[in-house]
């Protein structure tokens, strides 16, 4: 029998990076930019946070007297700045220089994953530190601190209250993004930019600004997913390639939820569950590998069904992946 009380927290822990990634990518895609660099951005976000807190922890005489506020703010800010730079790079190339989005995105993923693995693997050598591996346990403890009454509430506490603050922020961001996209003027204009930029342009919307802001914001949100993974899920231990294919899974989640962040909040838990289902189902080691296929298969099915039903509100943004030149109509 599936042990729900231990299954759900692990599924949620898996879901948070996916949720950050997919929320960021949905905002980006709503502006018509298909950012395939998200996996790279999440690596950069993660490693920038690691670099920040590594340098901070090293500047302390004793890691245990870490300042809680600085210990959290430094990695978060480093992560946001790093992912923002990646977002700006993507926008500069695709929006200002009108480059091909797919190629730019893939180049960013190559660069970002390489950046993460390089600094993850060489940070100790580069700084001349006398430590065997990057283990930011003091910082990680700050990120993992659960709500104080979580342990006293039995299963309820374990299922709902046992996560670090970044997990709650992930869900808050997803719902906020959903609200902004559906119920505000900014959201309406953003969707207009993604659906039909020339009409939006004619209506007086600044296409360039919307694309820049949406993509950079999306990258910053996605970068937090990388930070959550290192600091909370992996206990502050960076190991190369450990983040794996979660970035692509986040892209799958975007399709699965048909570009809706609030659906993403629930669907990410489903994906997280599918991702670790093999741990909980007794089976041979070979069959486990087939279980890991599930999230992708489910995504393909949803992609096909949504194109099959051909309902207009279930389609990708109309101009997704296409650059916009005003002169090129």
């Amino acid at each position, binding site marked *: 029998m599936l042990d729900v009380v231990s299954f759900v927290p692990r599924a949620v822990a898996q879901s948070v990076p996916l949720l950050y990634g997919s929320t960021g990518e949905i905002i980006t895609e709503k502006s018509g930019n298909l950012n395939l660099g998200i996996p790279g951005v999440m690596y950069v976000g993660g490693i920038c946070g690691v670099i920040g807190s590594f340098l901070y922890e090293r500047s302390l005489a004793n890691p245990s007297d870490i300042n809680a506020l600085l210990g959290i703010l430094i990695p978060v800010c480093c992560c946001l700045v790093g992912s923002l730079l990646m977002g700006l790079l993507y926008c500069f190339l695709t929006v200002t220089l009108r480059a091909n989005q797919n190629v730019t995105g893939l180049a960013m993923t190559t660069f970002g994953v390489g950046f993460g693995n390089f600094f993850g693997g060489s940070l100790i050598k580069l700084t001349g530190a006398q430590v065997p591996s990057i283990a930011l346990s003091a910082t990680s403890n700050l990120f993992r601190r659960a709500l104080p009454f979580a342990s006293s509430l039995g299963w309820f506490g374990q299922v709902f209250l046992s996560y670090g603050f970044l997990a709650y922020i992930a869900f808050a961001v997803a719902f906020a993004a959903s609200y902004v996209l559906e119920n505000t003027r900014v959201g309406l204009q953003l969707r207009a930019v993604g659906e039909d930029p020339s009409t939006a342009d004619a209506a007086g919307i600044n296409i360039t600004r919307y694309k820049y802001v949406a993509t950079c914001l999306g990258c910053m949100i996605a970068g937090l997913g990388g930070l959550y993974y290192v600091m909370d899920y992996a206990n502050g231990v960076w190991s190369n390639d450990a983040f794996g294919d979660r970035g692509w899974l986040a892209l799958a989640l975007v399709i699965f939820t048909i570009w809706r962040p609030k659906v993403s909040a629930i669907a990410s838990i489903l994906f997280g569950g599918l991702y670790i289902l093999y741990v909980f189902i007794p089976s041979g080691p070979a069959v486990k590998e087939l279980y890991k296929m599930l999230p992708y298969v489910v995504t393909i099915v949803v992609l*096909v069904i949504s*194109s099959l039903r051909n309902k207009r509100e279930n389609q990708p943004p109309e101009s997704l992946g296409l650059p916009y030149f005003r002169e090129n109509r």
Partner: protein
Amino acid sequence: MVHITKRKEMPVVQALAVRLGAILLALVVCGIVTTITTGLNPIDVYVTMIKGAFGTQRKIWILLQEIAILLCVALALTPAFRMKFWNLGGEGQILAGSLASAACMICLGDKIPNAALIALMLVTSVVAGAVWAGVPAAAKARWNTNETLFTLMMNYVATQLVAYFVIVWEVPKGSGNIGIINQATEAGWLPQIGSSKYLLNIVLVAILTVFMYLYLAYSKHGYEISVVGESASTARYVGIKVDRVIVRTLLLSGAVCGFAGFLLVAGTNHTLTTTIAGGRGFTAVMVAWLANFNPLVMVASSFLLVFMGQGAGEISTIYGLNHSFGDILTGIILFFIIGCEFFISYQVHFSKKEGGHDA
């Protein structure tokens, strides 16, 4: 104010000069980045890179072999890209082809004559690759399903499928590796011609390059592909069956990817792993794009990317840096080349007049 217009067409020499300029600029930036992050002298680093790629005869063969495989994948993706069908599933299609080849080698290794085995491997891997690309293509043709995302997802389905079979066939049990298949009998291994075991692969890909160039430039199919790529409605108007062109082209695309998988398993690696494709499905997208989808120019662009990879590998070995340093340098060069295309397609005018058009 800045005002941007589309150029008619830049002369080839000038366009080449812009690209070379971008690469030079990128190399300078790479040098600065290298010095900042590692404190090494950038000139030394470049010398090491060149040594890493061309240093010994063995290294040159490996370089050529890597170029051949990457080029093969890029050639596979090109017909699809020319049609503006973004086949990002090269990785999965290579894996499907490799899996089919390896399956034949393992299951039929000592049961049928070697020539028949190799022929069977070739056919099954080409079919497997074609199927892997054909499914998204059929969905695109039938229901207009987004092909970028569909082919992307198919990569991971293939990866997990390979992971499953790796464990089913692992030798010894529990190692998580298949090891070299048929090491004693060499059944299903491509024969060695000439002095290097890589030569046959290289010759095969060279033939394929010429074939693909002729197919795209001079055949009726190639013409139909270009028309569909320019405008699907125009194609329909002149009587081209767009759906059929899409499926047919993607079957070809997947088949060639499957062929690349066959070359990897039968020609060089003689084993199957989940990482056998090594990201080539994605790198090849950039190779094809850099060459503006021209098969002959792709020889140069795949050389550039493989050289960066091999050279950076040498840097990491010699200076004790992480191997991923090459990815950073490759990324920087790509960003510059991607960016410079703008100056080839567009012209920037600066005018002193205030007001006017606001971008």
